[in-house]
C-alpha cells in the first residue's frame, strides 16, 4: 500500500525532473517530431515494417535480401532525419540526468531502484 507521503514525494521528484532543461528540451523535440508529417510518417513506416518482418521470421519464413535491404534503407532515413536526430540526442541527455538522479535515489536503499522497479516489466 503506497502512502500519501510516498506518493507526494514521488510526484515532487517527477515534477523536478520535468522542470529540468534536459526533459524540457526532449519534450519539445518529441512534440516537433510528432507534428512533422515526414518524421512522423518515417517512424510509423519503420515500426510497421519491423513488426511485419519480425512476425514473418517468427513464423519460420525466410526473408529476402531485398526486404532486409529495404528495411535498412528506411532505418537509415529515420536515423538521418534532422528532427528525429535532435529528439534522440535530447533523449540521451535525459538518460544521463535520470541515471544520475536514480543513483541518488538508490544510495539510501543500497540496491538499484531501477532493478526492482523494472523487475516485472517485459
Amino acid at each position: 500500500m503506497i502512502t500519501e507521503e510516498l506518493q507526494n514525494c514521488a510526484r515532487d521528484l517527477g515534477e523536478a525532473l520535468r522542470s529540468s532543461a534536459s526533459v524540457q528540451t526532449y519534450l519539445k523535440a518529441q512534440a516537433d517530431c510528432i507534428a512533422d508529417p515526414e518524421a512522423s510518417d518515417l517512424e510509423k513506416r519503420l515500426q510497421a515494417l519491423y513488426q511485419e518482418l519480425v512476425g514473418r521470421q517468427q513464423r519460420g519464413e525466410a526473408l529476402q535480401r531485398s526486404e532486409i535491404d529495404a528495411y535498412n534503407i528506411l532505418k537509415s532515413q529515420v536515423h538521418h532525419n534532422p528532427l528525429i536526430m535532435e529528439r534522440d540526442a535530447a533523449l540521451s541527455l535525459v538518460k544521463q540526468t535520470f541515471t544520475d538522479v536514480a543513483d541518488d535515489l538508490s544510495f539510501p536503499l543500497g540496491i538499484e531502484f531501477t532493478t526492482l522497479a523494472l523487475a516485472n516489466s517485459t
Partner: protein
Amino acid sequence: MNIQTPTSINTELKTEAEQAARELGELLLHTPEYEAFLKALNTVNNDPEVQKISAEIRSHQNAMRWSPGDTGEHDAALTRLEIELEAIQAVQEYRLAEEAACRLFAEVDSIISQAAGVPFATNAKRSGCGCGG
C-alpha cells in the same frame, strides 16, 4: 543583485531533483515492503541449506563453462537443485517479499514518470555492457 544564468538554473533544478531523490530513497527504505524484502534477503543469504545448494549450483555452472561438451548431466543436476532451492521456506518467503517490493517500486516509478512526462526507470537504467554506451 543575484542574476541567475541558465547554467545556475539548471544546477539548481538538478540539485532539487537530487534532493527529492534522496528523500524518496529514505522514505522507501522505511516502507514495510522494503524492510520485509531486506529481512528476507538476509535470511536467505544466511540459510545454510541455501548456501549449500547455491555452492552446488555454482560448481555445476563452472563445470559447464570450463568443460563444454555433453552438459546433460549438469543440466539435470541444475534443474534438480533449482527445484530444491525453490522448495525451501526461506526462499519462498523471499520470493513473496521481493514481489511485494517490486510492485511498490513499480508503482512509485509510475508516479515519477507521469509527473516527469518521460518514463523514469526505463531511461535511468544503465546499459549492461559497462562501456558507458
